[in-house]
């Protein structure tokens, strides 16, 4: 308990430090497009945009405990909504954002209903099938979507008064949307909805007994999550200015899920790290081996998961936890020998008063009765 007292004691200093770091981060985010070359600003924009999609997926997978292998499809739906509006109706960029968001929200609601009955792998398949089915459907609806040739639309242009270059303007637009979306996600999770979600994820039956309306919250989680993916898709159209059915193959869905897990599930800033991973690591892989970038990329994914099984966001916490545990190890010798020593692996470790384990969002709190991704139990009747 002494650690908690210590933490309280240094509360003021901590708050100061937090404010400072926050200010610094904001300054860095605003200053970045003036420091980096346009090409790198573009890369940062892409990172932010993927982070929005990952934040949405995080609501569902990290906080809702459901798996989606089909978020690429919601991403595509958002992207195409924006592209079709720009191409056919010439609505202007800003108008596409609410429509894409609302459309994907409704689409997510539709998928949230079957999601009520399905869990784990079975839900994953339903979402995957949507992702597999969407590209041929987009090709079929040629008169609207431009078919397999796709649609080329105008990118976001900076207004004359801003005095900014195109890349800088796009960066700020995407940064603004990302900031709003991430704040929204944070507030959502701290509201009743978020607490209900966590309760459902950690123990569905108990949550229901406590009066959480299961069906409502699970469906809503899906809808919010799809909406975020749709918003990211819309931003994608703004930035890339080109959509085609084969841009949104199911590989995109898998990439998004991989990015989220690599970044850190159930962490508020894991999506940012995951997005940076998805964006930069493939190019780094190429620099290492031009002959087979895939070999390096595959190895890097595995290596990160080895080093940080709870994702990059959980890494600092794990390191601190490991250090703290080393100190207390002498006292707690009653561990099962040979049991995995990763903190996330052993549910009991969460109960330990380690400084990092108490509130760190990156620590998956749900590794108890029914881990994320577990299929229905099979027990012989």
């Amino acid at each position: 308990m002494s650690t908690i007292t210590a933490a309280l004691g240094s509360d003021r200093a901590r708050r100061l430090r937090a404010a400072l770091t926050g200010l610094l981060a904001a300054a860095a985010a605003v200053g970045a497009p003036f420091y980096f070359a346009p090409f790198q600003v573009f890369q940062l924009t892409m990172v932010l945009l993927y982070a929005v999609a990952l934040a949405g997926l995080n609501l569902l997978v990290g906080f809702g405990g459901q798996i989606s292998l089909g978020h690429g499809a919601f991403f595509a739906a958002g992207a195409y909504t924006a592209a079709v509006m720009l191409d056919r109706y010439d609505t202007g960029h800003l108008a596409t954002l609410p429509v894409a968001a609302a459309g994907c929200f409704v689409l997510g609601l539709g998928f949230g209903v079957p999601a009520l009955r399905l869990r784990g792998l079975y839900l994953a398949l339903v979402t995957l099938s949507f992702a597999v089915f969407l590209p041929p459907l987009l090709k079929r609806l040629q008169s609207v979507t431009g078919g397999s040739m796709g649609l080329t639309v105008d990118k976001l242009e900076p207004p004359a008064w801003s005095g900014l270059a195109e890349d800088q303007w796009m960066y700020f637009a995407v940064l603004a949307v990302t900031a709003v979306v991430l704040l929204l996600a944070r507030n959502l999770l701290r509201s009743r909805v978020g607490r209900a979600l966590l309760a459902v994820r950690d123990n569905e039956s108990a949550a229901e007994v406590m009066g959480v309306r299961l069906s409502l919250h699970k469906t809503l989680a899906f809808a919010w999550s799809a909406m975020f993916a749709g918003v990211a898709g819309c931003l994608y159209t703004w930035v890339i200015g080109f959509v085609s059915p084969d841009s949104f193959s199911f590989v995109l869905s898998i990439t998004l899920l991989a990015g989220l897990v690599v970044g850190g599930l159930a962490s508020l800033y894991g999506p940012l790290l995951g997005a940076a991973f998805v964006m930069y690591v493939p190019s780094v892989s190429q620099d290492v081996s031009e002959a087979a970038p895939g070999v390096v990329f595959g190895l890097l994914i595995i290596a990160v998961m080895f080093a940080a099984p709870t994702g990059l966001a959980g890494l600092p916490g794990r390191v601190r936890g490991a250090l703290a545990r080393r100190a207390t190890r002498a006292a707690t010798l009653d561990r099962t020998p040979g049991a995995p020593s990763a903190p996330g692996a052993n549910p009991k470790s969460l109960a330990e008063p380690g400084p990092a384990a108490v509130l760190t969002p990156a620590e998956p709190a749900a590794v108890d009765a029914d881990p994320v991704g577990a299929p229905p139990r099979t027990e012989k009747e």
Partner: protein
Amino acid sequence: MNAVTDFLRQVVEGLGSGAVYASLALALVLIHRFTGIVNLAQGELAMLSTYVAWQLVASGMPFWLALPVTLVVSFAGGMLVERIVIRPVQGAPELTVVIVTVGLFIFVNAMAGLIWSFTVKDFPQPFPDGGIEMAGVRVDWSTLGIIGVVAVVMGLLYLLFQHTSVGLVMRAVACNPSSARLSGIRVGRVLMLGWGLAATVGALSGVLVAPVLFLEPNMMGGVLIYAFAAATLGGFDSPVGAVVGGLFVGVAETLTGAYVDVIGADLKVGVPLVIILAVLLVRPQGLFGRAAVERA
């Protein structure tokens, strides 16, 4: 050719594709029963095994000798993969393990391309050319052969799951590794066995389908999605379900592709998926799966 023969012909065609999906679905079910995870790299491991067989045959080994050698190599390889790649994240959240298999997928695919290039390879057909005529419909020996082998593997797995102590042990491990460990089960060995067996079944699948699909690094990518669908339809833990699911998916997509013009070949992939969704909404555990029993 009249309408009935024509219809039968499409059904046979569908059964042929269905058997391909079923063969990989069996490996997915096997690893899921053993370890409780879904291995997204299963198809790629099967493809790698097939290249091993191809290399052996290309270097002069007769096919019927190369096959058992490949199966043994795959078994060892599967165990090795578990030991080296999966064991370090054992006990981490399930999704971490799934993403490790994604990494494995990308790695194996690129590696195969690096070693054997992306050029299509011909793979020896283990079954004789030609086929038999039944009710005016020709059924190829290769289709019959795949279905036959798949049926045998399904039977063996059923026996393994239901009537051996290994089956009991692995169910215990898949359900709750820590309890299983406490009951004296060597969890690590069981998991290695699971990966080894799944790799072997996958290798068999790859060798069976390679003459039909042609061997190249992306051979199993498309099959994996359908195998996943088949396993889900059947209920992710039943070998019988995997085979029935595979055949059903194959026949359903072929028939709708051929007869329903509005859907056509481009959208036929949606049909089995809609059916699966419908089935799952009625039976969330799949056709042959067992319902989850929750302990609150």
